[in-house]
């Protein structure tokens, strides 16, 4: 039995190749899934207004506010679903919420 990598598993996979018992042998393969396309509204990070309090980060259900060396960076738009929680939680008006142009 081959140990297929999740990135190589798609809807054309044969039964001979499917992983045994539908197991997955790697961490966090959902990273390959683009959920950003679900967005209707989009948060816009205004870095100049951000005080780096990071209160928005733990509220994100989609792990889409990356933190690097104690500072948040721009959104991970590949995964952000645009729920807007970060917008309401921000005490400094550092996140705008706009309708996405498709």
């Amino acid at each position, binding site marked *: 039995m081959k140990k297929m990598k999740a990135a190589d598993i798609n809807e054309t996979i044969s039964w001979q190749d499917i992983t045994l018992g539908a197991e997955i042998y790697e961490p966090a393969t959902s990273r*390959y899934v683009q959920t950003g396309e679900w967005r209707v509204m989009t948060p816009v990070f205004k870095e100049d207004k951000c005080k780096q309090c990071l209160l928005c980060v733990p509220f994100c259900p*989609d*792990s889409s506010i990356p*933190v690097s060396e104690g500072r948040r960076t721009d959104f991970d738009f590949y995964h952000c679903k645009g729920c*807007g929680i970060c917008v309401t939680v921000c005490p400094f008006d550092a996140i705008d*919420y706009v309708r996405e142009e498709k």
Partner: protein
Amino acid sequence: MAYNLKRELNKPERLAGGHRLCAGCGAGIAVRGVLRALEEGDKAVIGNATGCLEVSTFNYPNTAYYDSYIHTAFENAGATLSGVEAAYNVLKKKGKVKETYKFITFGGDGGTYDIGLQSLSGAMERGHDMVYVCYDNEAYMNTGIQRASSTPRFADATTSPAGTEIPGKVQNKKNLTEIMAAHNIPYVAQTTFLGDFRDLHNKAHKAIYTEGPCFLNVLAPCPRGWRYEAADLPEICRLAVDTCVWPLYEIENGVWRLTYEPRRKLPVEEFLSRQGRFRHMFQRGNEWMIRETQDYVDQQWEKLLKKCE
């Protein structure tokens, strides 16, 4: 070490994006918050009851977890992780597993308050070194917002609809946290998402690093089922706590302690009026529903204060 949000957020993430939970879902926030309390370097096996979280975070071939993960069924998350923990104890003794592992399982309120209660109770009674986390969104959301024993009285759910004769759910919410406390396990707490997540983090950390079975009940609002704008989640959580609908407390080795006391206890309307599931309570002639809800919340709050004295 005192809680520091910045330090905690510098740790590697343990739940990846790309899962299929609805936008603004409280379950994702709960899982991230709890797993963040794991010490860096400690390994974990994550268990999961069938439910929204499970179908969304391990949808073949995509797992959202950086750690090992197991889901088997709806009603047995407690027992399944018991088996994993039992295996760990033996394999560790035999020297086949060398690392430190922690065992954390997540269940929705359906899988925890209701169909999985027996399995949970058994796992807690047997004393497995594990944490059971209920993300409580107060109805069976995965199947389409049916009432549960965790659904509060008067809530409009698809199997307890508000009609002309029956005003939504007839029964009060089951107090699962107290049921778990009655198991006399070392640590039980209830929490939700507030401010810098200090309350949730500290409780999760205690639960994970207290030896023996521990239980966390996390109120995890569901925008779809509760009918509010997804972005309003922080305010909904704040109101749940400040109206004392969802008090924050813990029971550590039998000692009850409030971890948050509202400066000013708000009337329940503040919480109820923000959610479509309670809309009918605000129609003319239904004032008694709000009154009775307030009476019930007050009575429960007083009882809790006595326990926490």
